[in-house]
């Protein structure tokens, strides 16, 4: 039996809505097959909120074991460090989370808000919020970067806005079954964050031959002009499809880089920033001169079927 407590802080509830869509494994499977006992989940628990208070007391008093603490939402510290823009029974959620993390074997940040601050931390960050162990890209959030949970891991960041449903349930399944979890430099499980959104996008052939859309609602690549951050964003969106069906880029919506610590970027999200005619942000690790040479050769090599955009993405 693996006990799990789920708390929402400065949250929209999107990661809860997302995990309800998980199918591999599903939430039901986590309970039936992985013996996860959901002590409390704000959208699902049948008991009244007084049950949550009893649970918290018991956990703090070391009378209730807490294997996995899941936090959904930005950690709100305002106003003036009090955290009272996000209160719970007269105290700040921030202080409650601070106490509970010390009692959990594992702490999991569900979504970009709990991982790095997310959308609520976009300028001017009216509530002075941040992530559990990061403040955007800066190490250290509510907890210092050196902090470790009882099992010796830092906060596990399943970023995404919302986090991918199956990235969440697979991670929880791995923790419940004691499978090893390797983390990247941003403390995200490598299994779900070691490839780019660009991998698997059905517009790839347009990208390859430099057939770049200038307007939305078309079939080609959106990287050059329409703000797509697929080539610079680590996530499984195009290799483990959303809702078993699709992804933003397949549906003609640019990737907004929502798994990255700096999401949302402080710029036009639907337009590619350029230096002259060249995107400011190139695919991860690519050098500018090489990239431009490759692109002009690619365009020269483009077959008609690609130039004519006859293929549906």
């Amino acid at each position, binding site marked *: 039996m693996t006990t799990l407590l789920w708390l*929402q802080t*400065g*949250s*929209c*509830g*999107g*990661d809860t*809505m*997302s995990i*309800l*869509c998980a199918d591999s494994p*599903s*939430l*039901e499977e986590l*309970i039936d097959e992985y013996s996860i006992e959901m002590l409390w989940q*704000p*959208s*699902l*628990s*049948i*008991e*009244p*909120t007084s049950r*949550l208070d009893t649970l918290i007391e018991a956990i703090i008093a070391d009378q209730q074991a807490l294997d996995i603490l899941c936090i959904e939402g*930005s950690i*709100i510290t305002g*106003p003036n460090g009090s955290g009272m*823009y*996000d*209160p719970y029974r007269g105290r700040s959620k921030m202080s409650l989370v601070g106490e509970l993390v010390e009692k959990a074997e594992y702490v999991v940040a569900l979504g970009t808000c709990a991982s790095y601050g*997310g*959308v609520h931390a*976009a*300028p*001017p960050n*009216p*509530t002075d*919020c941040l992530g559990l162990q990061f403040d955007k890209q800066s190490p250290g959030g509510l907890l210092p970067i050196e902090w470790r949970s009882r099992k010796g891991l830092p906060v596990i960041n399943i970023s995404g*806005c*919302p986090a991918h449903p199956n990235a969440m349930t697979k991670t929880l399944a791995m923790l419940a079954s004691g499978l090893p979890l390797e983390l990247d430099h941003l403390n995200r499980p490598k299994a779900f964050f070691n490839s780019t959104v660009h991998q698997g996008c059905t517009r790839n052939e347009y990208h390859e031959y430099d057939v770049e859309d200038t307007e*939305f*609602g078309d079939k080609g690549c959106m990287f050059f002009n329409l703000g797509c951050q697929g080539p610079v964003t680590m996530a499984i*969106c195009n290799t483990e*499809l*959303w*809702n*078993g*069906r*699709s*992804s*933003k880029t397949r*549906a*003609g*919506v640019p990737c*907004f880089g929502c798994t990255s610590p700096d999401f*949302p970027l402080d710029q*036009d*999200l*639907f337009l590619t920033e350029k230096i002259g005619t060249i995107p400011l942000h190139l695919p991860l690790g690519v050098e500018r001169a090489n990239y431009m040479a490759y692109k002009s050769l690619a365009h020269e090599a483009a077959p008609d079927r690609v130039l004519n955009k006859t293929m*549906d993405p």
Partner: protein
Amino acid sequence: MTRRTIQIDLNRVEGDLDFQLELEDNKVVDARCIGSLYRGFEQILMSRKPKDSLVITPRICGTAQLNAAVLALEHIGRIPVPPTAIRIRNLCLMAETVQSDLRQSFMFFTADFCHSKYVDRPFYEKARAAFLPFKGSVHRGALEHSRHIVEIIALFGGQWPHSSYMLPGGVTTPASSRHIIDSLSILNKLTRWFEQAIIGTDLDAWLAIQSADEFFTWLTAKDTHADSAIGLFTLMSRDIGLHNTGFGTPHMISYGAYDDPDDAGTFPPHRKHLFKAGFLNGDTGDIEPFEQAEITEHVRYSWFQPYQGGSPSVSGTNHP
């Protein structure tokens, strides 16, 4: 005269919401709902590009306010939308509504029938068999099938929740033959389950019910009707007297829903809706025109700093 305040916490709501009741001599004299979380979306949106609102605004809530954001931009920019785009938007919005209806009813609401205080009611065992979270057949069915219906939104929008496929002027994905047949397949499968588990009859027979009397006749006509999720929901609610409890005002308002694609040529907010806006006068039973201007908002009922005028439609700056 005794006056006291009762605090009511709710779980299984989307968001943070508390209720307070003021009682005088055990009679409710005032009630307020309280949103206790502040995140500052208005400040975050200031100085951003208009289309960024299609990404930021939906993060108010996990189920997305994308439609409101795009209509606002089309209203401001006088941007026309083709009828097909309205149909695609409606398809996705309707799929989202079905998801919400299933989860709201059979995961968030009916779970309460399993409460131990009802252990002596005749329905208790059936309630637990149907509605117990993760164990009850209807709870599990609603969870599974609410996942499937939003696949329609994924076809046109890439994912659910949080996609941004509605842009000023239309949608990002056309209605290809594949998407249409896929959507029909999803809808047909959901309908078969809905008929079997939720209404216990076929959809045409269900839609033919036109009055409360006809509904109650239908309910007791067959076991499959009474044992359907809607049957159990009705019988259990009435058994504990929910139909006699908690009436506040008899009046209702609606802003309407689903833009009429045949009225695509009219800009929001005056475009006609498929589900009409209106004010239901609970005293007369008449449906009167809906007048948004008659809804008053005042800053004193918020956590924001007071300002001249006090009404956000005149001039609002939302500083806590």
